[in-house]
């Protein structure tokens, strides 16, 4: 289990002179659930963009399951086994949840299969099971546009799972959710963590506390520190990033 599923070395991303990521090193064990936190603009979303091939790194290397992903475009990386959930839920609004899931679940994503393939019974079972897992049985055949925000979030996570990736990248899964929904999503992620490697980006500290085993703090494009929730919480550098220098407090006062 200690094998690394994702390894990132010296990653730098330059946007017109602005370094969104700066010499970042990161690794994730197979089967691990990792939470990444950090103030706004720390480079969290860019980090996911690089892994999924949306943004090309200026320098540095991303290794997934022991192979460099360099030169692969988004859909190829996705086929390698990286699934991503976006900050705001991105689902196909004019399809039903069932159809959304079926599209993701489909093993053969070529044009031929799209025309002539039929969902296999195994796939259909998987989808039915997933609908149950994400709690959308009653709405499985309504347009996804009619779902509530929380349901959309859950559906997108479900789509991720349907893709059965080895690595799940989840960007702010509980933004805009109620407490109850937040907890549901947390449980869902924990359940998934039993069989997948997951990276979660989140701001909601209560939620982070609920799910996190190991936390990585990003700041200005690099890893500031890594450790358990308690360690991170008490790390002076983290406190400084989030709350400002504590000593200054006294100095100025």
């Amino acid at each position, binding site marked *: 289990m200690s094998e690394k599923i994702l390894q990132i070395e010296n990653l730098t991303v330059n946007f017109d002179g602005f370094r969104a990521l700066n010499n970042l090193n990161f690794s994730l064990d197979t089967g691990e659930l990792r939470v990444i936190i950090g103030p706004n603009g720390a480079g969290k979303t860019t980090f996911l963009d690089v892994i999924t091939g*949306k943004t090309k790194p200026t320098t540095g290397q991303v290794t997934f399951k022991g192979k460099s992903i360099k030169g692969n475009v988004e*859909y190829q990386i*996705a086929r390698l086994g990286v699934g991503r959930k976006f900050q705001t839920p991105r689902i196909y609004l004019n399809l039903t949840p069932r159809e959304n899931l*079926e599209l993701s679940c*489909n093993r053969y994503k070529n044009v031929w299969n799209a025309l002539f393939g039929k969902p296999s019974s195994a796939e259909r079972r998987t989808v039915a099971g997933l609908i149950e897992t994400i709690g959308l*049985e*009653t709405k*499985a055949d309504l347009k996804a546009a009619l779902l509530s925000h929380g349901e959309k979030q859950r559906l997108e996570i479900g789509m991720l799972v349907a893709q059965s990736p080895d690595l799940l990248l989840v960007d702010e899964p509980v933004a805009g959710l109620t407490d109850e929904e937040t907890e549901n999503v947390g449980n869902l992620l924990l359940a998934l963590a039993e069989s997948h490697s997951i990276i979660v980006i989140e701001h909601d500290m209560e939620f982070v506390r609920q799910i996190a085993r190991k936390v990585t703090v990003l700041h200005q494009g690099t890893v500031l520190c890594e450790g358990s929730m308690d360690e991170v919480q008490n790390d002076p550098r983290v406190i400084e990033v989030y709350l400002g220098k504590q000593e200054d407090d006294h100095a100025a006062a």
Partner: protein
Amino acid sequence: MILAHRSLEAGSLQLEIKLVDALIQSKPKARQRLLLEAGIVAAIALLLLFVIPPILVGSGQGFRVNLLGRYLALAIAALGIDLIWGFTGILSLGHGVFFALGGYSLAMFLLLQLPDGQLPDFFSPYGVTELPWLWQPFYSLPFTLFAIVFIPTIVAAILGYLVFRNRIRGVYFSILTQAALIVFFNFFNGQQKLINGTNGLKTDTATIFGQTVSSPPIQAFLYTLTILLLVGGYALSRWLTSGRSGRLLVAVRDDEARMRFSGYDPTMFKVLVFAISAGLAGIAGALYTVQSGIITPQAMNIAFSIEMVIWVAVGGRATIVGAILGTLIVNFAKSILSEQYAQIWYFFQGGLFLIVVTVLPGGILGWLREDGVRLVRSQINKRRPLQTYPSLEEDPDVQYERKNLTNRESDR
């Protein structure tokens, strides 16, 4: 097991069970609907074949049968536009190219129905004495049939691949298709010696099966063929827009990037749809040409290709029936209005564009579904008979969802 998930109030449990029942029954229901739809399509086709022509002829409007045939051929092209624009969200302003390629293919074949060694007569003023190589394959009927469908398809696939590959989208794609239109127009317009330039190719006087193309039996045959192919095009569009491929089209329109992250390569899907829609345009072009008697580079002028879009927009984008309906309505309106108000037809056409875009973005069918239904029902206050496309208003799930969402808003 389905019920054992989330807390539901006792009252809605009853409803829940009903919904589950409905879901379980949905399979045979879907088949029934499909049969019903096929029945309706067949009925309309028969109506078009056997009832409408005699009525038109009987009322002294015989030439409108020919118009109808031509407009039905245009409707096939509109189906293609609907696939690429309505369902997939890519606005092509260059379908005239494909339309013309289909038309030219068939016209070249027809013009070669001559005794051995003779050339089509338009060649003589240009001093051409030997059949250009471009024409040679069109002696063969199988090749011509292939060419009508696949030359446009292949051209579209190449063009589409070159453009989509670079993720050129939206208006850029539209402008580039327009540029392609200009390229082809200039080429066909400028090559007098090859394909008679501006004058185009005339098919009326060509003979096939021992009859001139413009003779009534052949025209009746073409009219029938058009209807059959339109039904075929309808079936193809239905097939493409339902099931997995239909979902993928919607997915391309809704969120192309999401598709990529799910492991799909949207470029290939877009190329495929573009190519298929081009093939439909090619068939339409061929049928239109033989029924109107001439194909000229005018089929590739900018206005015509934009008009195709407006047919679909008027009927209702992303509805297959809408594409056909829109084509017939706009073209008959054009033909009748331009008889009555020959001088100011452009005012109407321009106004149509403005109205459809600003007031009726859903087109006629869209309006019927959204407002029309409500209006009619509130007027007669009774249930609507079941249609081929049951509206959302009829769907119990939607009603349930509506109520639930409304509750959600007020809760806090």
